């Protein structure tokens, strides 16, 4: 599964994307965030305030409790500030 990072999340994690193989117990966006945060301290810090992390699966906006079934691309990013 591919993960994309945007804006300050990309900068704090120092990467725009990565390919990951998830353990079977990671089944939702919330689970993915926990798993990512547990990998290293930079991720733990960047993902600390979960309310500031938004997510998309396969280029569709989703909630944190959305299932990862069928997800080939997950994007994680802060609240939008365009326009």
């Amino acid at each position, binding site marked *: 599964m591919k993960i*994309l990072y*945007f*804006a*300050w999340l*990309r900068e704090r994690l120092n990467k725009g994307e990565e390919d990951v193989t998830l353990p079977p117990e990671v089944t939702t966006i919330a689970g993915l965030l926990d798993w990512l945060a547990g990998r290293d301290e930079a991720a733990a810090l960047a993902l600390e305030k979960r309310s500031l992390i938004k997510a*998309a699966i396969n*280029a*569709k*906006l989703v909630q944190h409790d959305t299932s990862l079934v069928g997800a080939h691309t997950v*994007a994680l*990013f*802060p*609240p*939008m*500030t*365009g*326009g």
Partner: protein
Amino acid sequence: MDIRVTQDPFDPGAESNAFIARGAAAGAAVTFTGLVRSLPDDPILTLTLDCYPELAINQLTGLAATAAARFHLADVTIIHRYGPMQPGEPIVQVMTLSAHRQPAFDAAQLIMDHLKTDAPFWKKEQTAQGEHWVEAKSADDKAKARWE
């Protein structure tokens, strides 16, 4: 309906004219153009917009379709740039065409109010003091809520 997410600069007036030419007999056209603002007390040197283009196209297409159906638009166009930009350059342009002015105004405002919080763009301002990511505003959530 025309949705564009692009790193290229665009010409606001030329886009308005092309939009109007496609359906001028409708009667009422509203154009909103958002430009890179520069405050006198802390001038912006460069504004850089990060973007997730694939999701942006999906979100803006859905938004345009919702506005077109709700306000019976004859046509709608959304153009949003990303990448680095200078003060005064256009970032976003929303154009709506309708038989009457009120739906055209309402549709353009609904699109802008939703675009601010729902389209995946992120602004980073570079000033003489350094650079920082623009924070999301609660005012933008309120502006969106009035359409619910």
